[in-house]
């Protein structure tokens, strides 16, 4: 079994907790880190970015995932704004731009770095307003950046990487249109509105996935993003998760399981309290397992390792010290714990920050390959 596998085989087996040759590798970088690495590497074929501002997909160029020969590839990412119109710029400096987007939300974004925007105002501020605009959320081909994702998809197939369809789930969707705070209040004060918002986004997300699949071809797994927690725990109680979120997560994840696609679920923060519910909803693997929020594969693998995979948990604050001994200790401790259950994939516990030098990073990836070998 331990002959070298293709990336596709390796990830497919790992996500199902079957024996494989080594720990699969995938990562994310802060925008500034990615730019610095691409510049330092100096390869003109590189530079097909993840998100950038303004967006420059550069479909003719390769991603850092390909440069580092990582095992997964991301495609999909449907645009779920209500209106696909360019944002209206309300104010701008060299550093940031304040704009009203296609969801009628006013947000302040950094121009040269990644990060959550400031939520200044939400135009959808009532169930009535939502009822007026929800019909705009129509699945459509123009909601996919085909020029970026088709070449990526085709290269990934050719290179035998594991292709993940990426999208966001209901909390993340609603956060962009009605805002976190309004959504949280509505769970108590206007529950029927929350259900309508979540049901609308779920139907839309499923339709967009079907549309992508019909156009591009099958995907191997789903990588679903939704920050449902912060460092001290979930935003909502397990009771509220069960009442408001679980049915829509299950409906969405079932769509992938029907195609034998495992579901990787991304949430920052401490999601431990929700893990039994997430597993029941159909989550196969959790990512990125933020160390500072208390997520620890050494604690969780013995509890859930027979039914859940672990993706990440390598502390970025340790990586940012650029100290190889400390990094090796971190890798050994976390990877060994996860590997015992066959379902561990390497990723940092967030995104690689600019403080991690390219030299350190190259060494890190090689070290992960070395430590991650199954005997």
């Amino acid at each position, binding site marked *: 079994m331990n002959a070298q596998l293709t990336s596709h085989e390796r990830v497919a087996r790992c996500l199902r907790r079957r024996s494989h040759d080594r720990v699969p590798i995938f990562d994310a970088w*802060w925008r500034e880190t990615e730019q610095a690495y691409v510049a330092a590497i100096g390869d003109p074929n590189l530079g097909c970015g993840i998100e950038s501002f303004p967006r420059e997909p550069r479909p003719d160029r390769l991603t850092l995932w390909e440069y580092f020969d990582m095992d997964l590839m991301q495609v999909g990412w449907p645009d779920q704004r209500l209106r696909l119109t360019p944002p209206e710029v309300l104010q701008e400096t060299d550093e940031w731009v304040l704009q009203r987007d296609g969801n009628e939300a006013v947000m302040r*974004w950094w121009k040269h770095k990644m*990060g*959550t925007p*400031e*939520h200044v105002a939400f135009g959808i501020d009532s169930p009535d307003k939502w009822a007026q605009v929800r019909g705009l959320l129509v699945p459509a081909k123009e909601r996919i950046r085909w020029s970026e994702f088709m070449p990526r998809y085709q290269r990934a197939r050719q290179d035998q990487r594991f292709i993940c369809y990426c999208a966001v789930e209901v909390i993340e969707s609603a956060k962009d249109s009605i805002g976190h705070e309004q959504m949280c209040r509505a769970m108590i004060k206007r529950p029927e509105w929350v259900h309508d918002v979540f049901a609308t986004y779920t139907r839309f997300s499923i339709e967009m996935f079907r549309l992508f699949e019909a156009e591009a071809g099958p995907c191997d797994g789903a990588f679903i993003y939704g920050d449902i927690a*912060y460092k001290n725990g979930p*935003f909502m*109680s397990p009771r509220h998760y069960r009442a408001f979120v679980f049915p829509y997560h299950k409906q969405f994840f079932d769509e992938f399981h029907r195609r034998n696609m495992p579901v990787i679920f991304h949430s920052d923060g401490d999601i431990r309290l929700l893990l039994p519910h997430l597993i029941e909803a159909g989550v196969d693997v959790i990512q990125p397992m933020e160390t500072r929020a208390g997520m620890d594969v050494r604690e969780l693998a013995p509890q859930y390792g027979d039914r859940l995979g672990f993706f990440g948990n390598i502390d970025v604050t340790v990586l940012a010290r650029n100290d190889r001994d400390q990094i090796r200790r971190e890798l050994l401790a976390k990877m060994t714990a996860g590997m015992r259950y066959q379902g561990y994939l390497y990723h940092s516990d967030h995104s690689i920050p600019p403080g991690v030098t390219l030299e350190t990073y190259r060494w890190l990836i090689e070290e992960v390959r070395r430590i991650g070998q199954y005997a």
Partner: protein
Amino acid sequence: MSIVEQLAEAVINGDETATPRLIEEGLAAGIAPGDLLNQGLLKGMTEVGRRFREGEYFVPEVLVAAEAMKAGTAVLKPHLAQAGVRPEATAVIGTVRGDLHDIGKNLVATMLEGAGFEVIDLGVDVPPEKFVEACRQRPVQLVGMSALLTTTMPMMEETIKVLRAEVRPTPVLLVGGAPVTQEYADKIQADGYGRDAATGAELAKKLCRLGRN
């Protein structure tokens, strides 16, 4: 249950229609505005903070409780002014320069109001000079700084240095946010660290010696 007890209960239950009504009833019954504030609204928020710290309440429950408190405060405010009841302390709060995150900071502002502070919210991406300016415009007992990114945490240290150099007496300086730890707070010589909004507010009360709840 007395009116002030009902008021506290209405805050705990996030009943924003009950709090203004109970304030009116309390005033009509001759209850002092300061008692309605301290024994009703703020006592309710203190209990909300306790439940949040102990994992009984989550963000939705805290937000609706804050709405209920604010609805009651809006009715009570003119009566407090008339009775000469002023907040015991003023807190200036903001997310430090380079960081646009605001949800956590807003939650802390709410909990500080619930702890009896008048809160001056400077918003996000706040440079050290703006914190200094706010402290010079009025007597300020507490400055709360928030950061959500490892890359913006160092700006807390910078802000603390500037505040200690420029503002005398220096207010109590509290820090918090996702990447911040007690160890980091000690390293940058903050006076305290709040691991969550409720703990931060409780610590703020203690360090500023607020004792009316």
